[in-house]
């Protein structure tokens, strides 16, 4: 029972971290941009998936309605569509330091093309499209590419994951060092102290037994001797 709870908790933490990274790390879609526009967007309990206030596109409004830029795109299969929002990320999370949404919107509009003569672009973005919560991935950059079959290597993600692995390794090493150099010697000292206390207690007990034993022997000497 307890084992299941423990493993359930671990799997939950793992899934949460994976989902968090999947949301935050940059991804690139190969798409054709079909429309760009602004829409006054009400933001409610899904505020977590929009830019925080106090950023370039969020500071103007403190109420729950915000004018947000959107980019419509279609994947090479010609049917699957994607809607990106285009908001500044501001000074906090996620750390893209994006403040060029206006320029990005202009670039996206510049790449707008129709089905007969498509322009293929790679849209760098983070986030998810979840219609049930009305949340959109945030476009970060747009680059023109040769065609829909170009293979994109996620160098940024490779570098970030390698760095994260390095940080985890270093934290593990530091904890090991801390245990070896600080905790274990302290425990040894404590054990030595306890042993010393124990020895003293044993000695005192032996002493006490000696005194007590002598005392009892003295009491015993008062007992009447068996008569002959």
């Amino acid at each position, binding site marked *: 029972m307890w084992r299941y709870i423990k493993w359930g908790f671990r799997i939950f933490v793992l899934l949460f971290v994976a989902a968090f990274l999947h949301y935050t790390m940059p991804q690139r879609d190969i798409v054709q941009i079909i429309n760009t526009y602004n829409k006054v967007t009400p933001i409610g309990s899904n505020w977590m998936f929009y830019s925080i206030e106090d950023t370039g596109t969020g500071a103007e409004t403190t109420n729950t309605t915000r004018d947000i830029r959107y980019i419509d795109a279609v994947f090479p299969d010609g049917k699957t569509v994607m809607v990106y929002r285009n908001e500044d990320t501001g000074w906090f999370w996620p750390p*893209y330091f994006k403040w060029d949404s206006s320029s990005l919107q202009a670039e996206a509009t510049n790449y707008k093309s129709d089905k007969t003569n498509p322009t293929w672009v790679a849209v760098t973005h983070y986030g998810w499209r979840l219609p049930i919560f009305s949340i959109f991935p945030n476009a970060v*950059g747009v680059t023109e590419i040769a065609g829909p079959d170009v293979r994109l290597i996620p160098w940024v993600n490779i570098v970030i994951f390698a760095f994260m692995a390095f940080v985890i390794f270093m934290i593990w090493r530091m904890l090991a060092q801390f245990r070896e150099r600080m905790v274990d010697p302290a425990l040894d000292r404590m054990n030595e102290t306890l042993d010393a206390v124990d020895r003293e207690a044993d000695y005192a007990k032996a002493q006490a037994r000696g005194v007590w034993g002598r005392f009892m022997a003295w009491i015993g000497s008062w007992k009447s001797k068996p008569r002959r």
Partner: protein
Amino acid sequence: MIFGWIRLLLMALVLLTIIYFVVGIYSRSVRREKLEKRFDAGGIDGDRAVYIEAGMKAYDKGLKKRLLWLIYILPLTAMAVTAYLVNLH
């Protein structure tokens, strides 16, 4: 908005300072252990404590300790590069 950036910078500096000191303690500890092991392997004359203190003094002046400044330099550079690539590239 400007206030947000200043806040970010201050938060980053506080966090990086904490990391700097923790990694600094770790690095010193590793160096001290290495010196202890080198002395205990034998072949070195003189007092153990004196040898280790001399080694730690050399460490304090050495290149490795200065490399710890990368803890400040690298993240701040990464922030600047990210901002450049996202906005101006």
